[in-house]
């Protein structure tokens, strides 16, 4: 067995020295400050342009008006409920779509025959524009949460399926041979090799599909709904309250950023061997 001193030497080297972490943190802070400055500059230019009447504030909104719209929405509580509703629809569709897609995609690895049979159907399904499905989805699932969930799920499922299946097929055949030479059956090859090997691709898929789920949920809300960010944007747009549209858009973007940051966190936590992520 290893003695304590044996394990300590090289293991110490693997740990990040505190000084480097601090320096990296400082570097990130610099980038963040520059990004903030750029944003401020753009907003200032926009504001100046609308005030100077070079740009029509009624058609193009203005940062000041957007800020007031945000504050108003925050005061009456619609900002919070709309974000929550859309966030929940997105998250639920994202999880359901990826569970279904990844599950089916990986299951197809088990049978070459089934996967060959299904391939054209999957491609056909994948080429249907999801927007075109929205009216049917509303008819089938009503105007509440279920139809938004369905839209978000549909926007995710095929992409997730294809990515998981390609990931599973991409496993090195020599690697599979090695497992077989160790006496692994198909289930063990799947569990110990194919599933973890596909995780990198699956996570790339998660990052991609979190945005798709949000788009799906918002399209669902556009079609028919009485709450959610999509609903707020649609309503403000049809009333020509452009600043309100921009305000809700900004919240939507923030929601998208938060969701993809969460996926990134999850990836880092679940793939500790990926040094490029740490």
């Amino acid at each position, binding site marked *: 067995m290893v003695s304590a001193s044996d*394990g300590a030497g090289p293991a110490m080297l693997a740990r990040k020295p505190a000084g480097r972490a601090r320096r990296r943190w400082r570097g990130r802070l610099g980038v963040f400050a520059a990004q903030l400055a750029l944003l401020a500059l753009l907003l200032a230019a926009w504001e100046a342009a609308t005030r100077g009447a070079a740009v029509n504030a009624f058609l193009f909104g203005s940062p000041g008006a957007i800020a007031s719209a945000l504050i108003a929405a925050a005061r009456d509580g619609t900002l919070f409920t709309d974000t929550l509703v859309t966030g929940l629809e997105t998250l639920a569709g994202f999880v359901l779509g990826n569970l279904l897609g990844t599950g089916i995609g990986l299951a197809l690895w088990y049978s070459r025959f089934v996967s060959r049979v299904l391939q054209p159907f999957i491609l056909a399904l994948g080429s249907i524009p999801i927007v075109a499905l929205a009216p049917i989805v509303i008819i089938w699932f009503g105007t509440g949460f279920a139809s938004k969930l369905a839209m978000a799920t549909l926007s995710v499922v095929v992409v997730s399926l294809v990515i998981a299946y390609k990931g599973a097929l991409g496993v090195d055949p020599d690697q599979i041979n090695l497992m077989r030479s160790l006496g692994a059956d198909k289930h063990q090859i799947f569990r110990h090799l194919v599933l973890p090997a596909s995780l990198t691709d699956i996570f790339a898929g998660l990052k991609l599909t979190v945005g798709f789920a949000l788009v799906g949920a918002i399209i669902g809300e556009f079609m028919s709904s009485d709450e959610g960010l999509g609903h707020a944007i649609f309503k403000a747009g049809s009333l020509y309250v452009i600043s309100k549209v921009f305000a809700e858009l900004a919240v939507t973007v923030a929601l998208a950023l938060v969701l993809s940051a969460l996926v990134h966190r999850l990836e880092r936590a679940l793939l500790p061997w990926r*040094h490029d992520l740490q």
Partner: protein
Amino acid sequence: MSFARTIAGGGRAAGEIFAATDLGKSFGEDDAAPVEVIRSVSFALARGEIVSLVGPSGCGKTTLLNLICGLLAPSRGRIAWFGRPLAGTPERVGYMLQKDLLLPWRTAVENAELGLQIKRVGRAERRARAMGALERLGLAGFAGFYPSALSGGMRQRVALARTLAPDPEVLLLDEPFSALDFQTKLLIERDTARLVREEQRALLLITHDIEEAVSLSDRVIVLSRRPSRVITEHRIALPGDRTDMIQAREAPDFAHYVRTIWNELELH
């Protein structure tokens, strides 16, 4: 090693591990133009024996190894393990390729455990055995490292530890030592030779390194260019301790064997 003489005779010789008879392999047999890789190869391996296969690059050595352990189906010929025709993959075989094929999401010791885990050995026992294998290869301090944090030679040694941890009777190794520095290489060759000779296991080694083949082996089989067949089979008789790789190189006949095999590879 006289009991090892019955080469591919069909009948079962005492101590015979496997025998390949008139093996042939073509890829893409259903296509219009199949690629014949192996024409006809026959040879056998006996308990306690080390046999090396040498041959030009691309002549089908790796393919031959995959045929022998049932990962590829031969186009022609027979393979018998322990006197019985091969079905599936043989038991208690340690198979290692040129590529280390470590799983990047497993640490060194978790990689070394893979075979034991597949055989459903309990957690504590498999950890102990994997650590033992790593220690033997000088990697005890790196057990918790991911492959991405190891050097090429270290990764190759982890792969060797993974091969040895399940305690295989038969080793089928495809250029396992090519990524090692000379010093480490001789030490690991010595360990491997001991493992095989003292514990009556068997080793089939594929190598490009003629000196390695001669210093380590009882027999060296020279293969021709594609489609490959056996050119010659040399029985290596060197005096002294056959687990000492330096001593083997100092033997008077060593250079003679190396030159002969080198010439044969040149000619064919």
